[in-house]
């Protein structure tokens, strides 16, 4: 019991230390982002388009495939319940609102955290153990500007765009299933969707995606920057990175949903 209490205490202290370090990393990242944006020479070196391509374009097929299947699955589940009360007309609106408000941003962020956030940790962690980050510091080059800022800006652009595309694709998946298998007329499906969906539903998803982007970059890069040791530690940090960002995304999603619609 005493050991368990000690373990909990140590875990809590580590959590607070991580939180404090994440805050300083975020502050430095924002500061260095301004430095980068205002310096044209450094901006051209930063390869922002390559980052956006790597994060966004390369994640697109996976995100869209999952989103389309999600749209179909949600339509099936909702129709199963509404069939009993003859409420098929409610399906388009329900699916659209649930996807734009909740499922689109959440699923996209979780996919990107697993795919991109983990890659950030693995890459930066490997650079740390092979002394590449120390080499940058020795050359008086700020590692945060060199390694974190471009990923930060890249994901801040990519994730909201990916989320919006994923939400539209999921709604399209629901539309195709609803109009072909449930017998809902296509024009009725579109009209019902547009009647229910509001601009707030769309932009709340985009805002959520922006917050999730910050979480994924900060956690992914931080876990990489604090790696000490060798390959085993890089693997452990990568696992921790995915676990921490997944938890943070789900907690913040609940908080934001409460703030927008509570």
């Amino acid at each position, binding site marked *: 019991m005493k050991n368990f209490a000690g373990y909990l205490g140590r875990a809590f202290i580590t959590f607070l230390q991580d939180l404090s370090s994440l805050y300083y990393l975020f502050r430095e990242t924002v500061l260095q982002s301004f430095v980068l944006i205002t310096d044209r020479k450094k901006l051209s070196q930063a390869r922002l388009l390559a980052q956006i391509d790597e994060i966004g374009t390369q994640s697109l097929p996976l995100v869209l495939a999952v989103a389309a299947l999600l749209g179909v699955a949600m339509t099936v589940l909702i129709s199963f319940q509404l069939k009993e009360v003859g409420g098929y007309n409610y399906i388009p609106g329900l699916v659209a609102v649930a996807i734009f408000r909740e499922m689109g941003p959440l699923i996209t962020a979780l996919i990107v955290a697993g795919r991109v956030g983990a890659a950030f940790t693995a890459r930066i962690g490997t650079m740390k153990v*092979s*002394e*590449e980050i*120390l*080499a940058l510091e*020795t*050359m008086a080059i*700020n590692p945060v500007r060199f390694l974190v800022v471009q990923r930060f800006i890249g994901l801040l652009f990519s994730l909201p765009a990916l989320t919006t595309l994923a939400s539209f694709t999921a709604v399209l998946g629901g539309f195709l299933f609803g109009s072909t298998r449930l017998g809902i007329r296509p024009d009725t499906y579109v009209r019902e969707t547009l009647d229910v969906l509001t601009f707030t539903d769309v932009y709340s998803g985009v805002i959520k995606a922006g917050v999730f982007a910050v979480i994924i970059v900060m956690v992914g890069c931080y876990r990489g920057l604090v790696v000490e040791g060798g390959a085993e530690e890089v693997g452990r940090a990568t696992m921790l990175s995915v676990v921490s960002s997944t938890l943070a995304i789900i907690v913040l999603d609940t908080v934001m949903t409460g703030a927008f619609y509570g």
Partner: protein
Amino acid sequence: MIRAHGIKKNYGVRTVLNGIDFVAEQKKITYILGSSGGGKSTLLKILIGALKPDDGQVFFRDMDITKLRGTGLDPFRKKIGMLFQQGALLNSLTVGENISLPIREHTPLDDNIIKIMVKMKLELVGLRDFEDLYPGQLSGGMQKRVALARALALDPEVVFFDEPTSGLDPIVSSVITKLISDLNRVLGITCIVVTHAVEEAMKIANKIVILYKGMVLAEGTPAEIQGSSDPIVQQFITGSPDGPISFHASSRDFREDLLVE
């Protein structure tokens, strides 16, 4: 040029450096020798400002670098170069991009001038045709030479070398040793080399500092070190397995260790 005074460093209860004093003179080659795990790399990290000592100072001219933090270290770091043990080249950048990185970062020079500078640095290490390759496509020796070219990118006053020849075949080791000697002789660069390669130190060093148990055991010219009557120094430079330097690193008595409760 670089002066270390009373450097102490502990990792937990283990004392790694216990009051290191030495001076590395301008335009000279200083070798810091010591056995593996003897605190050489820790000392090197303190000398370049990457690690803070628990006590003591490191002066670069009159600047105490142990008092500087963050961007305060930048003026010092722009005047030094560092060759890491594994090269520490950025694997996502080509050889040319690696070398041009500090130049682009710290000078207003345009691309054409930078390209010329990169070629000049690569020519210094004999790898002019390798500009467009990635570090992963080079051998270990070539990577070290590229890393040396990068360390020289900003024409530093001092270059630090961490085990520059470890893991290399004898020919490549000789090439690297000759490069260090040439840099000092032709360009007047102050070189501080941390290694356990005694033979190479005896060939080109102006001064040798031997670390033992976290302290300076001996220092002097290669001739003075070779003429030392200290049995520990003699064992170290001859590499003899028998002598006062124990093969066993454990501090506890072996017989006590075997008495399991």
